[in-house]
């Protein structure tokens, strides 16, 4: 069946099988491999995308249900020449090790800051609680996100501790 949706700001039309997930469509048909396949059952968050602005597990989204909606993947967050402040912060704070959780972490973080520009540390931890990381121990990720709150943007780059 045909589905039409907004992907990273652009209208796309794709022919999909109803028994397919958004994750399969993004990686397999649209060749956007920034979104990762981890557990395939909604427990690891590696497949996180924004659906109508909210972070969800694309491995749990039936592709027909995306018709007429808005999807943002990691490819839509920034470009190599124009990185999103969160992407810059992740690099500065050592929040990227193997990189597998990173797309999901960035999108969960972006959604949080869009809703709450000045979250507490606890709110940040809750926001990324669906994104598992096996490498960093989470602290660099939390610090990177903290550095992007409205309050901290002014001192970012001056104090990396």
């Amino acid at each position, binding site marked *: 069946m045909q589905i039409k949706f907004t992907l990273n700001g652009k209208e796309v039309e794709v022919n999909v099988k*109803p028994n397919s997930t958004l994750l399969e469509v993004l990686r397999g048909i649209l060749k956007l491999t920034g979104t990762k396949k981890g557990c395939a*059952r909604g427990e690891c968050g590696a497949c996180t995308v924004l659906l109508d602005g909210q972070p969800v*597990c694309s491995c749990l*989204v039936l592709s027909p249900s995306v018709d007429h909606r808005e999807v943002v993947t990691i490819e839509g967050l920034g470009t190599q020449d124009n990185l999103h402040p969160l992407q810059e912060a992740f690099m500065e704070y050592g929040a990227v090790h193997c990189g597998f959780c990173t797309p999901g972490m960035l999108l969960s973080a972006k959604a949080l800051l869009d809703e709450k520009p000045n979250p507490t540390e606890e709110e940040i931890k809750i*926001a990324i*609680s*669906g994104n598992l990381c096996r490498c960093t121990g989470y602290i660099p990720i939390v610090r990177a996100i903290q550095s992007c709150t409205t309050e901290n943007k002014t001192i970012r780059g001056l104090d990396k501790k």
Partner: protein
Amino acid sequence: MSCRMTPELFTLPPFQYYSPSTLKETLSLIEKFGSEGVLIAGGTDLIPLLKLRTVTPQYVVDISRLSELDFVKQNGGLLRIGALTKHRSLERSPIVLQSAPILAEAASQIGSPLIRNMGTVGGNLVNASPCSDTSTPLLALGAELKLNKSNAQRTVSIDDFFLDVKKTIIQHDELLTEIQVPERSHGAGAAFVKVGRRTGNDLSIVSAAVSINIQKGVCNSARIALGSVAPTPIRVKKAESYLVGKNVGGREVSEAAEMASQEIRPISDVRASAEYRRDVARTIVEMAINKAIGNAGV
């Protein structure tokens, strides 16, 4: 849950897909499909089951766009929640936070934000896992559930809803449309406690929800519900009756908690042993009763 997720199990089995735009259309489809059809709302429970081939329906009826079932309203004192209300909405709803705060609290501890952004309260109830986090608050609050079919509807008490593991009284041609929570009475207090292996993104090892009514230091009603300690979410009625009529100032609360821990039938599984569950149940029932007493009349 089986961990044998071989590569072919990352895909969905074949099915025919329907996306009705009205409740009426939905009801006539599920009447037609009977046991060959399943409903999908948020998909957070169903999709993994489909991938594991635990369910292999011929038809999947997508009700996620039925916005008419996504609401939180208050009619007089009655709290009415549409079955397609997401956990994310329950968590944040000013009405729920005011009138049934333990439901908001429980919803906020389901899975992760990624799950809460898609999962619905109706799905959580109908999936009927013994650990269902919306079930215990709704049992404690004495909720009623509205079930619709093509030309009839019925309202059942949540006390009668769960039959067995993943089994409810819902018929194949019925849809859960609404959850109704009676008005909070004067002197009522409630609390919810969930214990898991992690502080987030986990099923409960044990959970407890308590609603208690205190008048002049005396308990005049109590509802104590526990999750993950029996084939379904349950109320511990002996512990509840024990508290009624008693002055809740001394040892009564720990006695009730001890009774509750004896009333349950926990099993040992990957998350915890039966003994541990019994022990933790005793502790959190005491905590929840005390917390509920503290909230009473507030």
